[in-house]
């Protein structure tokens, strides 16, 4: 694919988001806000042990609460089919979060696993009754302490999308022989997504037809999965999600709440809404894996890398989970002569871990980019200079060309904006009153894929354009940017384009994940608009319309109400063909390494008395190809940086190592950054299009968070002379 020339003015313009008014005025209906006659409310009861069996479950007291319709347990639940095994042949299977078949078994696999669902006429009655469900357990010995699991973790097997390791030359020998080396162990804690909208599902059965309003990142695959679990054809299931209040990967898998809402609706024969409490999200939606990482770097005295070793240990649940490609960025960032990358994961009796914003690179870049900073200190070299000295011309591991790489330009521009040249390299050399001030840098890196999307477009005689695609909008600006792209592709004003999305009745789109949605849909929007233009041109010729006529003029002249075009097909055959086409594209794309990159610059202040650390200045410059909408792209990048500051300084999910139970399941005790923690963030981009991507754009959803924690840790070292290798960097790690 080649970059398409820019035809109009909409692409690149800071267009206001099309759903902005609906969201800010409260008219946007999220999944928990759809009213149905006879709607009932479901509340989940969670297991309080990590492994074992339900010995007995007494629902009498709960059932007696006025308004309770049914208490559903494994003893009386309607049947649900087991989860499919994950397979690359049928991609919809990858949305399966866990192999547990909820309420179909008395076996417990994690602390928090649903053991009952109370359905009542009001949400208050359901909540009151849920606390009265009396479950007794036969606990079995559980394995939940991550630290205890690290030594025995086996190597991770890879798949088509996720690389798991790499080897070039003899890195261990090169390390032993290196003139200068650093070797260190880094750890990152478990994290949770904390989207502002808790997961919510409203399920409505009509015979064997099902409508599901669900906060999901993957409408089409959720539909396939739900249909399979309840034994109805996918065509009978409609998944609707026009508004999703943030996902970050947490809404990319089918978690228990979604299935239990559907199950409950079947059990009580009424529409059912199941909205998780914040605690419920922690107990039933997996977060990011913790990690232990070893990084070793060897270099010449001049700073040329001779060895790069990066080994990681993650964890998954025994019933499922994502171990994250933690060494991913280490494959591509530095021209090391010898490399050894290894990923391990231990299976434990915990809620399956899941993908969270830039799985792999978010935490992997913390270790790698901290180690590079440590090497720069050992060499007495500026950390940017060290990075530029080792900036590869081709992919360092496999020798493939980069599709696009302007990390040098990003650092140069960032250094200029941040004022890096004024920095005194000596740690603890800058003070402002009681504050120790330090600055640090780190690289951002996120690889990118293209999936395929089905899209239709209709150009009408009244001048309106309708683009239809079942893509997801979680706040990124999906509909807005696709309207901009369609407007320019058709040569019409952006205001005349309406985008329908968020409904499985529309042509199928890939999930919103891996920063791939915008580019994947854009490719199809460009293709479908080209088809529509061709139809309009032949119509113009037939009708004798003047050259340069607008679509509206052509249709009027021809007396035709509209023209339509489609890309892809949702028929069974069309889906298979689409998946084959996508696989071909994925294989072809393997010829080069494609990624968004960036350079973070951070200033921190550390209180000399208390160790309190506050980020006081931030500049990032990204290479994300062509930016379609500076407003929405800027927000995504800034949001990623804020989430990264959270993981650097405060966030941590506390799994009690004795029980496997999450002890801070709420926003009071799980510390995301507050406004006062975040300084003004200066975000910019190079803007040069990637020649291998539609319109030259590279996804911006995840690259922002990568490298952030390392930039903070490096700045903290510069401020204090203390290297903190265990996130989060809380003050107890800095006070003497």
């Amino acid at each position, binding site marked *: 694919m080649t970059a398409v020339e820019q035809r109009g003015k909409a692409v690149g313009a800071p267009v206001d988001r099309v759903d902005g008014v609906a969201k800010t005025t409260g008219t946007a209906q999220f999944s928990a806000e759809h009213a149905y006659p006879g709607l009932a409310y479901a509340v989940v009861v969670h297991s309080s042990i990590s492994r074992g069996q339900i010995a007995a479950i007494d629902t009498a007291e709960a059932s007696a609460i006025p308004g309770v319709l049914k208490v559903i347990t494994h003893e009386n639940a309607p049947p649900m089919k087991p989860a499919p095994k994950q397979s690359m042949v049928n991609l919809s299977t990858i949305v399966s979060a866990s192999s547990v078949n909820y309420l179909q078994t008395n076996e417990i696999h994690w602390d928090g696993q649903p053991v009952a669902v109370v359905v009542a006429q009001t949400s208050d009655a359901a*909540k*009151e009754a849920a*606390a009265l469900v009396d479950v007794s357990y036969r606990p079995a010995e559980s394995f939940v302490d991550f630290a205890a699991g690290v030594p025995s973790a086996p190597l991770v097997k890879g798949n088509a999308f996720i690389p798991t390791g790499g080897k070039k030359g003899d890195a261990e020998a090169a390390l032993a022989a290196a003139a200068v080396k650093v070797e260190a162990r880094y750890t990152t804690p478990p994290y949770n997504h904390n989207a502002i909208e808790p997961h919510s599902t409203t399920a409505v059965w009509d015979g064997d037809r099902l409508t599901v309003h669900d906060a999901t990142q993957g409408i089409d695959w959720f539909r396939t999965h739900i249909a399979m679990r309840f034994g109805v054809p996918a065509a009978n299931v409609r998944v609707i999600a026009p508004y999703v209040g943030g996902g970050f990967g947490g809404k990319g898998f089918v978690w228990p709440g979604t299935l239990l809402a559907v199950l409950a609706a079947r059990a009580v024969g009424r529409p059912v809404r199941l909205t998780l409490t914040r605690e419920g999200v922690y107990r039933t939606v997996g977060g990011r894996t913790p990690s232990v990482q070893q990084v070793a770097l060897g270099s010449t005295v001049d700073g040329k890398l001779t060895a790069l070793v990066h080994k990681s240990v993650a964890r998954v649940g025994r019933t499922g989970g994502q171990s994250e490609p933690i060494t991913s960025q280490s494959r591509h960032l530095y021209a090391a002569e010898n490399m050894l990358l290894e990923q391990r994961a231990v299976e434990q009796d915990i809620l399956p871990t899941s993908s969270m914003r830039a799985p792999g690179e978010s935490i992997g870049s913390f270790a790698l980019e901290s180690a590079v900073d440590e090497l720069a200190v050992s060499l007495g070299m500026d950390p940017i200079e060290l990075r530029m000295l080792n900036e590869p011309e081709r992919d360092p591991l496999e020798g493939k060309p980069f599709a696009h790489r302007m990390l040098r330009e990003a650092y140069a521009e960032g250094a200029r904006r941040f004022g890096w040249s004024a920095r005194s390299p000596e740690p603890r050399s800058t003070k402002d009153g009681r504050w120790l001030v330090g600055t640090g840098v780190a690289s951002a890196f996120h690889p990118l894929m293209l999936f395929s999307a089905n899209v239709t477009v209709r150009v009408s005689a009244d001048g309106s354009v309708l683009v239809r695609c079942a893509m997801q909008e979680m706040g990124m600006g999906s509909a807005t940017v696709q309207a901009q792209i369609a407007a320019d592709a058709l040569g019409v004003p952006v205001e005349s384009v309406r985008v329908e999305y968020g409904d499985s009745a529309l042509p199928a789109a890939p999930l919103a994940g891996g920063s791939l949605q915008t580019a994947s849909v854009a490719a199809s929007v460009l293709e479908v608009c080209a088809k529509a233009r061709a139809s309009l041109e032949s119509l113009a010729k037939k009708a004798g319309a003047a050259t340069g006529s607008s679509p509206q003029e052509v249709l009027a002249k021809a007396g035709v109400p509209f023209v339509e075009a489609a890309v892809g097909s949702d028929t069974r055959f069309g889906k298979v063909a689409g998946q084959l086409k996508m696989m071909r594209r994925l294989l072809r794309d393997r010829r080069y390494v494609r990624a968004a990159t960036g350079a973070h610059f951070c200033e921190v202040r550390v209180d000399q008395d*208390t160790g*309190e650390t506050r980020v006081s200045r931030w500049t990032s410059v990204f290479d994300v190809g062509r930016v379609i909408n500076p407003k929405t792209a800027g927000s995504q990048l800034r949001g990623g940086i804020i989430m990264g500051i959270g993981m650097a300084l405060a966030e941590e999910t506390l799994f009690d190592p004795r029980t496997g*139970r999450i*002890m801070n399941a709420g926003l009071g005790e799980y510390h995301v950054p507050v*406004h006062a923690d975040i300084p003004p963030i200066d975000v910019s981009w190079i803007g040069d299009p990637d020649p291998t991507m539609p319109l030259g754009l590279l996804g911006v959803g995840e690259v922002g968070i990568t490298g952030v924690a390392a930039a903070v840790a490096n700045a903290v070292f510069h401020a204090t002379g203390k290297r903190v290798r265990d996130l989060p960097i809380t*003050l107890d790690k800095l*006070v003497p």
Partner: protein
Amino acid sequence: MKSFAYVSAPDVRTAVSAIASAPNAKFLGGGTNLVDLMRGNIEQPDTVVDITRLPLTGVDLLPDGGVRIGALVRNSHLAAHPLIRSRYPVLSQALLMGASAQLRNMATVGGNLLQRTRCLYFYDRASACNKRVPGSGCDAIGGFNRNHAILGVSDGCIATNPSDMCVALAMLDAVVEVESTRGIRRIPMADFHLLPGETPHKETSVAADELITAVELPPLPIAANSRYRKVRDRASYAFALVSVGAAVEVNGGTVTQARLALGGVSAKPWRASKAEEVLVGAPATEETFRRAAAAELAAATARPDNEFKIGLAERTIVAVLRQLASKGDAA
């Protein structure tokens, strides 16, 4: 949340008789703590007596120069009150560093005095907690206890009192007035909160049927040079790891008066009287401040997660005293 009966009281007399006649009843003020605890089924009152309409909202200067604060004064209102800002800045600062703006707009002075601990195990019904279920054990002692107490702890409980306001009140020697059908009582702050000992479920000396009606601040000229310093994990909306409320008077290079209280270190707002003893009459130097801090923390007992609090408390005390002393010597 368990269903409950709701009573709204128009005056103090009705409120205290309502609570006296209803077993297992609770007063509802701002609800910022109680409602959360009810949602989590930690508190399960059968009756809730709404006191928000009671006329206990004044902040008034007393003839002796002290200030009387109604129990239903909202935290944000009290923090902004000119009498508090000018005469007791430590209290205004402590209030403003507590919770979030939304919570401060709702929370009352009386409710803040009764705020319950944020121990993770207290909040979790699946965990053992002697405070929630007497005799059930303490999962915090061998678990996550980074935010827990280092002073006045017992083998049964290491929870902290989370209030910022109470630290300032302890430092100021405030007096709490309570009323019941039996009459009116005045409780000095030093006696208001209880250390856990063998009975961690007993948190205050207020009886279940007593209503807090007011808090009185004594006149205290040195409080005009007072300060509250809160050390926490993020810039706002986090409980104190350690906090310090202090006031000092320095004359001719010597500390002539000192008031010091600590938060985040004990089940009660910790009046640092040992430190005060070291300070008064000693030269206002960094060395004195360090000695005073060390004297107070000498009795500290830490766990692996909260060991850092001992050094942190000492350093924070020194930092606050240094700043107060540098503000001016009366001589």
